[in-house]
């Protein structure tokens, strides 16, 4: 988990808030900064490759394609056939302080708006299979520094992050479909220490990811689907974390949905949902208070088909869902110099009173609440 999160965060840092985000700047150790946002960030990528839809108002998607021949569509796609390639990506980012390698005295970040990322593609082409990648990313309240003496991050009240990746395909074949959604709110990561502060994800705030693949025609070629959704709220990563209060009362939802008619089933299907709230990774923890009474939901489904049915028909399938709240990981000190650290008391209070739900009855499912892992 830690490795994953760290990797993800480094990806996040690299993910181009600024082209030079990785460069070292000389921020003052007494830097005090305040960032606030209200309003809406809305991003939409829309594609509809239904030709002729303008002139005669009726789709020609069912017209026999003489170049390929309707019979050929039933056959596995020859490797020589050129693929269609579509890439849709969205980034909404607000309240970002990137001070890698530098110290921050105090950072206050408040986000009370809505971030919406929608990638929608309607594929009607009969000629060539479609390879598509849809990626939606929302970031709110992110600070990355060497040392953070005080941090206050409020996602809400009334804030939301929404991602929709929707691929609809009618009478046309698909190849590989990848849908990725990531919502991230309230992340403080420091090389050394996080001194004090709070992270707030109140009751009326939400993170929602929906990855949807809809096939409406039973005629089609083989295709692969990979759907993944990650919601992250209230994350602290540092060598030392001290006197931080975190509240997660909102909701995190990941829905991965594939619908397809009988006769046109995916060759392989991978659905992954991950919700993380109130996550700490540190070597020393003192005075940490975490309360979680929100909701975490992961739903993986293939419409009208039981998971057992999918398992018997889909050549390769994989489901996983993970809900994590109040995860405290105290890591082993890196060197022998840290013997003294080993003897310090880990002081943390964790309260969890919230439903965690996964829809699937198959695959790998994890529900974690109030977990403290201490490596010494």
């Amino acid at each position: 988990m830690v490795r994953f999160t760290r990797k993800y965060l480094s990806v996040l840092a690299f993910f181009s808030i600024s082209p030079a985000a990785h460069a070292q700047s000389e921020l003052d150790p007494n830097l005090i900064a305040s960032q606030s946002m209200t309003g809406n960030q809305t991003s939409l990528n829309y594609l509809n490759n239904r030709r002729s839809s303008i002139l005669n108002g009726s789709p020609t998607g069912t017209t026999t394609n003489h170049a390929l021949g309707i019979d050929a569509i039933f056959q596995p796609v020859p490797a020589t056939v050129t693929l269609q390639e579509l890439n849709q990506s969205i980034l909404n980012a607000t309240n970002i302080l990137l001070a890698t390698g530098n110290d921050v005295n105090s950072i206050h970040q408040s986000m009370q708006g809505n971030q919406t990322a929608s990638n929608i593609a309607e594929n009607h082409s009969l000629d060539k299979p479609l390879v598509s990648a849809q990626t939606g990313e929302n970031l709110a309240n992110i600070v990355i520094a060497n040392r953070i003496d005080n941090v206050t991050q409020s996602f809400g009240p009334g804030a939301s992050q929404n991602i929709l990746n929707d691929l609809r395909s009618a009478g046309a074949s698909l190849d590989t479909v990848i849908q990725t959604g990531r919502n991230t709110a309230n992340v403080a990561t420091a090389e050394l220490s996080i001194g004090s502060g709070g992270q707030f994800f109140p009751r009326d705030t939400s993170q929602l990811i929906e990855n949807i693949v809809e096939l409406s025609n039973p005629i089609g070629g083989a295709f692969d689907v990979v759907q993944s959704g990650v919601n992250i709220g209230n994350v602290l990563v540092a060598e030392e974390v001290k006197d931080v209060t975190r509240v997660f009362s909102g909701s995190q939802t990941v829905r991965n949905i594939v619908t397809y008619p009988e006769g046109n089933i995916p060759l392989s299907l991978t659905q992954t949902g991950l919700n993380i709230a109130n996550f700490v990774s540190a070597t020393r923890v003192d005075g940490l208070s975490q309360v979680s009474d929100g909701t975490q939901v992961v739903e993986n489904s293939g419409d009208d088909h039981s998971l057992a049915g999918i398992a018997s028909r889909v050549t390769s399938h994989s489901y996983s869902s993970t809900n994590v709240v109040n995860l405290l990981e105290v890591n082993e000190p890196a060197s022998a110099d840290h013997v003294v650290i080993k003897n310090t008391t880990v002081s943390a209070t964790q309260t969890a009173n919230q439903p965690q739900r996964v829809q699937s009855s198959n695959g790998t499912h994890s529900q974690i609440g109030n977990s403290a892992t201490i490596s010494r």
Partner: protein
Amino acid sequence: MTKFLTSTALATILALPAMAEQTDISQTVDALQEALNTIDISDDATNVSQAGINAANIISIDFGSLDDVDQFSENGMIQDAINDFETQGTVGNNAILTDVSQSGTNVLNSIDLTVDGAQGFDLNRLVQEIDNADQTATNDIDILNGSSIGIDQGATNVMNMAAMDDMLEDSALNDLQQQIDDSSQVAGNEFDIDLGVDDISQNAVNVMNLAEVEDDLKGDSFQYVQDSTQTATNEASDTTVGASINSLVQSAVNIANSLDVGGATTDGGSLEFASIGQVYEGVSGGQLADNYVQFSTGGVTGPAVDGDGEIIIDQSALNAINLATVTNVGWTISQSAVDVDQQSKNLAQGIGVGVNADLTNFDQSATNVGNILSAGALPDLVSMTEVTQTFAGDQLAQNGMFGADDLTSVTQAATNVINSVSGL
């Protein structure tokens, strides 16, 4: 910008006399400026260029420093730069356009003390104020029964631009002040695809309050845009069924409040605001960047890479509010944007029936940004908030492709960024 500065230099009508250092200049203009070019023909055209330029309150000096400079336009200034080109062929004798360019440029309040390849000259104080001014730069090419090779359209509006080496004064007032109120900018390009086109470029740019200090900014700076609108649009349409489009590039850009300081800023001592202040108070429709292409059964084939191997974005729409890039921030900086309405949109719409209405190497990028600080260093001020960023409003980034057949290397990217602080 180089291209723009060249245009500005062209527009410097009079050679300025040699003047003593520490000269003060005050300029005030309230006028109607119209630059109109029209061509109406009925057949081919080759190597045709139309340029309409309006410039008012322009200072361009490369031989000495200045003291205090005031540039005012506060009473209904209007600048229109409009280029119009029409041709029509017949079914049997198509009109062929080859290397046709149109450029429309409006500049109101500009000072440039920089020197290419050398150190520029300094300024003590600068005040640029615009109220109730309207700029329109449009280019239009109408074609009937024709096709085109090599079309370049550029529409540019600039209000309040300043470039110098140092800003020297450190008074109790704002020492670099740029203000715009109740004003509008419209930059638009229109082109008829008709039977088809190969190599078309459309650029629409609006800029309000742009300051580039090559070295140090000693005093306070304050950039303010209020109740003003910027509209940048590119349209390539009226496409005949069967037409093909090769190498299309559309770029629509709106910028409000941009400051670039290559050296250090200091405590300017202004009692009004932060040492560096950028304030945007918007209205509905405040920034609209819009690109539209209508394609047909010939499809669209974009340029894959440019000479440097960089991917060329076929349609890019960008809105930006409150940009600051400062190598060494010496005092407080505040960026505020409220009532923001930023819309960046790209649309590719197909017409006709055919299996070749393919999109190949076609990219759309829609971006909105507000309150962006890139700093090499931030100051050490005890118990003071050095950086404040406030944003309220809406950003919409939207890409659409409709009616295509096959897609090859097609990318849609939508990006919104609010309140970002990062290193240089």
